[in-house]
């Protein structure tokens, strides 16, 4: 029955336009990232690679780097008080396209940068919101339930379907990264070895856990719009300020120095994860995911037991 339900849900996904449009948007996003950091002349940007690396290693996202690059542009095209353009007399290559800041970087580094950008989370939120929202919009569970009477089997099938789609999306990001590097970088090469596989799997698990949270919101609130909105809020880091405030409150008022909520959110774990992550950090990541999967499953089971279908 689980297999039948999963096939049915996969077929439903295959008929969703968003299932195709969102990966295309992801590919375009990755390609633009590659163009920006590998294909736009670093002399035009006016920021040193080391500075960008510093930004990168400080745990900020590609968006943060983008801000820095923008600053670089401004700096590079700054006009001095006497009206002359700064650096005008320098003989550097100022053509727009050329070797970018990360032109020489490896494919695994670019994959890391793309994952850390959290764009995939944003797009997956939309997909999961639409996927789960359709269940409530159409009342389709009225049809499915009769096939077995097991609401939990249906939940499991949906969790598997979302997992498979998330994996597919992760591979799309990976494939787009290779393409981006091939077009705008020096050469497609992997330098992290087994570390890359580890990072790929861990970042997938984190992304999947995030998708499950969106699924839970969609199921709990029976709303497509709510699921997508919450997904975007989480992926865009809107809650960061709130979590920082709670952390501050816990530390300063409750005097609990060791508790750090920001450190156990999925988006933060995804931002902090890298090829050099310590074993402790990896274990913490896996624990956070395990807690999320358990909570999401238990709440679904509880809802299935208590709530009528329609």
């Amino acid at each position, binding site marked *: 029955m689980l297999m039948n339900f999963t096939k*049915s849900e996969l077929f439903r996904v295959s008929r969703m336009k968003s299932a195709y449009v969102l990966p295309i948007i992801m590919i375009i996003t990755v390609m633009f990232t590659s163009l920006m950091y590998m294909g736009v002349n670093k002399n035009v940007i006016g920021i040193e690679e080391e500075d960008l690396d510093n930004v990168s290693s400080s745990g900020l996202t590609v968006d943060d780097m983008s801000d820095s690059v923008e600053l670089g542009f401004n700096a590079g095209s700054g006009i001095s008080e006497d009206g002359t353009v700064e650096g005008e007399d320098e003989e550097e290559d100022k053509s727009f396209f050329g070797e970018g800041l990360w032109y020489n970087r490896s494919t695994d580094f670019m994959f890391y940068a793309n994952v850390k950008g959290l764009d995939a989370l944003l797009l997956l939120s939309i997909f999961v919101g639409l996927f789960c929202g359709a269940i409530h919009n159409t009342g389709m569970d009225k049809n499915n339930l009769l096939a077995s009477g097991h609401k939990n089997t249906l939940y499991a099938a949906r969790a598997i379907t979302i997992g498979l789609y998330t994996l597919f999306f992760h591979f799309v990001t990976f494939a787009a990264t290779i393409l981006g590097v091939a077009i705008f970088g020096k050469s497609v090469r992997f330098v992290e070895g087994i570390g890359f596989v580890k990072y790929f799997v861990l970042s997938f698990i984190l992304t999947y856990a995030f998708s499950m949270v969106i699924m839970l919101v969609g199921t709990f609130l029976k709303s497509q719009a709510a699921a997508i909105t919450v997904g975007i809020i989480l992926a865009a880091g809107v809650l960061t300020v709130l979590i920082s405030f709670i952390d501050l409150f816990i530390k300063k008022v409750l005097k609990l120095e060791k508790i750090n909520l920001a450190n156990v959110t999925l988006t933060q774990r995804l931002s902090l994860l890298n090829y050099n992550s310590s074993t402790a950090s990896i274990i913490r990541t896996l624990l956070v995911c395990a807690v999320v999967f358990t909570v999401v499953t238990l709440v679904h089971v509880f809802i299935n037991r208590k709530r009528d279908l329609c």
Partner: protein
Amino acid sequence: MSDEFLLVTENLSKRYGKNVLAVDNVNLHIKKGAIYGLIGRNGAGKTTIMKMISGMAIPTSGSYTYSGFNGTAEEALGRVGALIESPAIHPKMTAYDNLKIKCLAYGIGDKAYINEKLKLVGLENTGKKKAGKFSLGMKQRLGIAMALVGEPDFLLLDEPINGLDPQGIVELRELIARLNAEKGITILISSHILEELAKLATDYAIIDKGRIVEESTKEELKMKCRDKIVIKAADTSAIVPIIDSKGYTDYQVISNNTIYIFERLDEVAALNMEIAKAGILVDSINVESSDLEEYFLMVTGTAAGVQN
């Protein structure tokens, strides 16, 4: 539970919140092969009953038992097809794709099977037209096609003729009758359009304010709806010997206060005189005739009176 019945409910109740008792101790007895009509006003509790017996809603109390199904209750539900409230269809998909989703959930991937179902409900030529663009009648028929996936033994149809044009109603009625006659599917159909139900149903339950007011067969209901002399008196037991002595045989004592006589309707005045001669006072004696609609109003009116 007798083998005669496909479904029996026992004091089935459903409460929403603290104040709304949608279904109150309902006992249904649905025979195998029957077309069972559930008659009631909007909001009477028909849909809630259907949701409970199809596993979609959890009863607050009471139980329901399916017979003739081997295995667990889950397997029993697998033998049920349902079209409850509006058809659960994906508006941006074709009729074929909608059916395929349901078929795959049942482990059926056969293209011919899906086309057969579409043909059965007359939707075989809809091609790539999205279900959202279908007329109401087409959507209802698609809903029925989906309910028929998995070859159910029991079909629940909740107000299936709502919003259909006259031709659509006739087509749907013929389809339901065909499914019952040819495939032996037991059907529970609810409607507040009694005229249509009367053309289909073999058994009836009248529901009002969540309670079953009356459960009867088509023959019993016909009998009740026939032209008749209705005698109302404080105590009808004294009247019965008079009726017997006057040679009436086709009569029914409905309650302590009411007797129906179905013959010699033109002799009502003479009968009244005989009863009066015996020193019995009647509250009323007159000839009544009613169709199903009038009968329903009378029965539910009484029920409301009792509750009040």
